[in-house]
């Protein structure tokens, strides 16, 4: 609680001194859903990134200058996000603006960033289409999941591992991005020779997912694919199991997926993702554990990968930004960025002038192994080239 309270009050303290100190540091502003119903998906990434950048500062900063991160809570509300962006740009004079919140906050933040000529970086939040090639000149994204690419990878895994003709059930939450993705997957499945048998779109949040799962089960799928916020993915799966459905389920590996596989302990629940699990012992795992311990973060370390990736991206971008930093110099650095992610993903994250998402997306698949009683990897990095 003390930690959360400190984090909540921190922006006020930082804001008071930011004006005086701005010229001595790389100042970065973040508008994030630190509270509210969506906070569970964003707050761990932001806190992890902050912890990593604090550790960078403790080692002397970047190019001899500290990084000052100003985090403002928008509770996933567009009006608050707009106010945050205005303050960060006009008052705090940030050289890089970040958004880690629901997509409904994007429009006002994008508009403010464009007006101020400051690059906008999405971390831990869904990547807008504008970051895919051909990219908007001002918008960048490092978040793990990627529309269409994720479904391509997931359905390729299903195809490779199907023991019989695939009768595919699809499930998503009733939010625009998840619905669009699941509709894309429905079309894609047909081209891969699968038969989509049902598509269930559930509202956020439902008090009971059984009615949705009942309809899905009655359609007789032997595989179900879901791409949505974790709450919708896992509760649909658990409801299906309680109804006695015995098929296989593949879904996106959100921040908490590694913990959740260990909780659910179902051998036919597969999660596909682009961030390494701690079970895989990526080279940076020890550093993440140490930094999280020092920062006294309240989350399991398995929740922190996305935030550390964001921290590595910011660190690399600023290293390539000559002092004194300006938004234009940061933008130039981000337009030709290659970040060594130290095993947290299958390869480096690379941005070009035309591609502000990444040039390659790497996917792994995990499940709970009932025999070994542990989370195991069932597919190593599969590469998908990100093209126009």
């Amino acid at each position, binding site marked *: *609680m003390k930690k*959360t*309270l400190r984090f*909540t009050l921190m922006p006020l303290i930082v804001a008071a001194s930011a004006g005086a100190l701005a010229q001595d540091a790389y100042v970065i502003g973040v508008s994030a859903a*630190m*509270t*509210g*119903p*969506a*906070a*569970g998906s964003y*707050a*761990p990434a932001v806190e992890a990134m902050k912890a990593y950048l604090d550790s960078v500062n403790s080692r002397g900063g970047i190019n001899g200058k500290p990084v000052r991160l100003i985090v403002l809570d928008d509770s996933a509300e567009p009006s608050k996000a707009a106010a945050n962006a205005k303050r960060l740009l006009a008052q705090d004079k940030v050289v890089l603006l970040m958004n880690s919140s629901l997509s409904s906050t994007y429009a006002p933040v994008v508009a403010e960033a464009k007006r101020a000529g400051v690059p906008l970086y999405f971390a831990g939040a869904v990547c807008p289409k504008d970051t895919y090639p051909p990219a908007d000149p001002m918008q960048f994204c490092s978040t793990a999941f990627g529309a269409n690419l994720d479904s391509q990878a997931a359905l390729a895994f299903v195809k490779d591992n199907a023991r019989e003709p695939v009768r595919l059930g699809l499930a998503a939450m*009733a939010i625009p991005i998840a619905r669009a993705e699941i509709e894309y997957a429905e079309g894609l499945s047909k081209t891969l020779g699968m038969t989509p048998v049902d598509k*269930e*779109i*559930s*509202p*956020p*949040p*439902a*008090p*009971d*997912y*059984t*009615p*949705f799962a*009942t*309809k899905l089960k009655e359609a007789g799928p032997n595989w179900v694919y879901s791409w949505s916020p*974790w*709450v919708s993915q*896992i*509760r649909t799966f*658990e409801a299906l*199991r*309680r*109804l*006695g459905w015995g098929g296989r389920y593949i879904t996106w590996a959100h921040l*908490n997926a590694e913990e959740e596989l260990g*909780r659910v302990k179902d051998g036919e629940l597969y999660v596909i993702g682009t961030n390494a699990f701690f079970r895989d012992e990526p080279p940076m795992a020890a550093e993440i554990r140490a930094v999280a311990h020092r920062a006294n973060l*309240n*989350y399991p370390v398995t*929740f922190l990968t996305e935030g550390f990736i964001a921290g590595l991206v910011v660190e690399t971008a600023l290293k390539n930004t000559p002092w004194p930093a300006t938004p234009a110099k940061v933008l130039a650095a981000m337009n030709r960025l290659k970040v060594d992610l130290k095993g947290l993903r299958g390869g480096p994250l690379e941005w070009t002038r035309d591609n502000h998402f990444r040039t390659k997306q790497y996917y792994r698949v995990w499940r709970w192994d009932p025999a070994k009683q542990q989370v195991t990897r069932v597919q190593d990095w599969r590469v998908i080239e990100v093209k126009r």
Partner: protein
Amino acid sequence: MQLAVNILVLASIYALIACGYVLVYRVSRVLNLAHGELMMLGAYALFATASSFPGHPFAAVAAAALLALAVGGLVYWLLMRRMTGEAVLAAVLATIGLGILLRGAMVLAWGPQERHPLQALGMSNASFAIGDARISSVGLLLFTATASVYLGLYAFLRYTAWGVRMRAAGQNPLLAAQRGIRLHAVYALAWGLSTFTAGLAGMLIASESALDQTMVVIGLKAFPAALVGGLDSLAGALVGALIVGAAEVLSIHYIDPLLAEVVPFLVLLAMLIVRPWGLFGAREELDRV
């Protein structure tokens, strides 16, 4: 058969939440818009007591339920009592403020992560067959708990002295006070019982799925059930929950799952047009613009 089971479980959820709205409204004519937050607080209380009583799930549940009861009484004693004599709108606004305060406090105390009280209790939610349908253990518990709560409240309100006092205070507070009924104690008890049932609903919903910040919205989704049945009628809340639950499950199954979100409010709108005081509610003088 499965549809019938689904309707019963969903209606149980709505009925258990809705009876809390009704208890407070029928006694004090205050609409408690912090009910969803109090429900979530009950679920967090279970998560907290689960770690305080490791290996003793029943003790943890009992402690959490008692905490919920006490919190309800305290909310009345520390906040709502001061609204006595003020316009009802002021009291309703106070509940909105309370809800915002509770939401913030819960994020500070437990963070934004999803929690699993059932796992913390060391229990699992197995399912079993009823004919050709299946129901989860917690689903069955929800149904049983709702039935027990309604039967208990019926017996309490009808046969106990405090229940009669509560009904009297709801019908005519001035007369009740003149007859020596301590209104503040009655109201505090109503708030306590309302928060107890809300907390119970929160614990069971969190055990069936999980506990996160979205639970507040589920609290609001039960509101149409209370209004459809009549805000001052417990029997009405039960029937309203059944109507709303059935409409929701059947629309998911036969029309479009997306309707699940709007159907309860469509039923509510229809009821407000036809019978604004609800199926079993008392017809009161309505303020008109």
